[in-house]
């Protein structure tokens, strides 16, 4: 496969679980600086697609290129170090640690065993923690134990943990699940800010939210891409209305 200008180029990607193809010969390109939203009914394979990109699940066939580098055979932590960050569908934070520690641990330094032993929380680290905490609206909660945060705040904290790593591709699986209306608005603003200078893939079911943030929408169904394009175009597509938007 030839090199491209895309930050992420997925071609003919397939994964099967005991014969069931959760992702079926899928091809998808994401531009630099783009905010892409993936929608689709339950079980369409959206989470599985993210799992494949970040190496959690190994592909049966096909290719995933991030900045023209093949990812399918790379270990998970190497994919992260290449610049891919991923938020899980259920908030995945360190509940027993303070917000500060959660962010500090995510700082991309001292990642080897010896490096972690020698790691010092320098002013540079503190400044970054502070600025990321401000970005995600948790600057006043740095000393709070993360487990005590509200559900929405936990989602933001996990996004903040990813921002600490300054990934070039950020993947968010249902970031507004369980959020209040106000929190959803704040998250939309946050996403619009953080997609400056990086590419973001968001999986979401909430159509109002999608309309607000998406540059381009991809609709998935049964492991394949059903439609792709602007929100208006996708919404008008009869196939999409039939399998997804119709209900």
């Amino acid at each position, binding site marked *: 496969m030839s090199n491209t200008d895309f930050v992420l180029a997925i071609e003919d990607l397939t994964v099967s679980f005991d014969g069931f193809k959760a992702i079926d010969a899928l091809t998808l390109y994401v531009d630099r600086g783009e905010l892409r939203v993936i929608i689709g009914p339950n079980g369409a394979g959206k989470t599985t697609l993210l799992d494949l990109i970040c190496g*959690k699940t190994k592909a049966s066939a096909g290719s995933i290129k991030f900045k023209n580098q093949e990812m399918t055979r790379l270990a998970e*932590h190497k994919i992260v170090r290449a610049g891919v960050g991923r938020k899980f569908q259920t908030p*995945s934070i*360190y509940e027993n640690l303070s917000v500060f520690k959660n962010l500090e*641990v995510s700082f991309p330094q001292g990642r080897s065993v010896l490096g972690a032993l020698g790691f010092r929380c320098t002013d540079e680290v503190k400044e970054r923690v502070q600025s990321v905490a401000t970005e995600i609206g948790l600057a006043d909660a740095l000393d709070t134990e993360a487990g005590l945060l509200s559900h929405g705040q936990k989602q933001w904290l*996990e996004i903040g943990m990813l921002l600490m790593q300054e990934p070039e591709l950020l993947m968010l699986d249902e970031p507004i699940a369980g959020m209040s209306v106000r929190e959803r608005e704040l998250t939309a603003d946050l996403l619009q800010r953080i997609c400056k200078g990086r590419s973001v893939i968001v999986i979401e079911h909430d159509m109002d939210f999608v309309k607000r943030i998406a540059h381009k929408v991809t609709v998935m169904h049964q492991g394949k891409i059903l439609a792709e394009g602007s929100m208006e175009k996708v919404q008008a597509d009869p196939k999409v209305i039939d399998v997804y938007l119709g209900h």
Partner: protein
Amino acid sequence: MDAFKSWIARSGTGSILLLALLIVVVFPLTMDIFRLNLVGKYLTYAFVAVGLVMLWGYGGILSLGQGVFFGLGGYMMAMFLKLEASDPEATKIQSTPGIPDFMDWNQLTELPLWWEPFRHLPLALIAVVAVPMVLAFIISFAMFKRRVGGVYFAIITQAVALILTVLIIGQQGYTGGVNGITDLRTLLGWDIRDDSAKLILYFVNAGLLIGVIVLCRWIQMSKLGTLLLAMRDKEDRVRFSGYDVAMFKVFAFVLAAGISAIGGAMFTLQVGFMSPSFVGIVPSIEMVIFAAVGGRMSLVGAVYGALLVNFGKTYFSESAPDLWLFLMAALFIGVVLAFPNGLAGLYESHVKPWFARRKAPKAAPAAIEPPAAPPPAPSHKSAPPATLPGGVQGQSA
């Protein structure tokens, strides 16, 4: 000054000092040499328990085979001492003088090549920690890179303990078999059976134990300690933050092995022999119980756990030997079900608040009496919340 005070509190220096006071000053002043030697023996098990705090408490990796590393460390030491005790003069009645007695009994006529390095103390001392750590590295690297963990890993460690026991017992001529390596006498000509030697070895042991605890505390307070806790709770989040989780687990396992091995070597020196009965599954499980009773998140708790359980064992196995096994099993189940954080957890949740309540009325009467007074603001940013299950802030050493 306040920063320093809060650092002292966070680092658990107080509880480490208290432990040091107890084992370095109080015990030697109040016990005769026989009892002190017994305590010294218990303290060698405490090394294993401290290692388990790092591995199991912090890393979340349960090993039921720590006896392997304790035993190997002990054997490495015993091999050196045995060679020194087997000089041609002392063994002249053997058919091959100059080799350990058990080799002679098993018709060996010369020292096996792999015993040769143990003629030299520096090599033997290196082997004490290096051999167990290399074995630990091989086992854990193979397992953790393949994502074997949890119960499966615990079973693997049991299998290793079993294999090593069988190997030692089976290879009598090379290892001394089921009796182990006995009749150890001198270290570079210094008689380790003397009371004065026992006293000195007790202090060396106590000093090493405190040193190991300080080292572990330092690791706990580094980013690596935080990562171990983070991995224990959300392994995938750590992995997808760019860390090679397997290598951190390998580190914890190798660290615990090295610490256990030091304990094993000190056991050999203080007790005067090493045998396969410290390698197998049962002693390995006992060591987990020490850590569990003391509190698997607490380094000093692990030492108290090792001391208490062993005092109990000595007491009961004299008065009611059959009962002891049941008692110990009951103790373990009781601790795990009722006090998952062991004695240390009990202290944190009951004793500390009780002290705090007793101090409170004296310290701040003004804040309580006038109903109009504002509630006392949290004074320190770092003041730990009252109940933190297993988090770093709530933990002392």
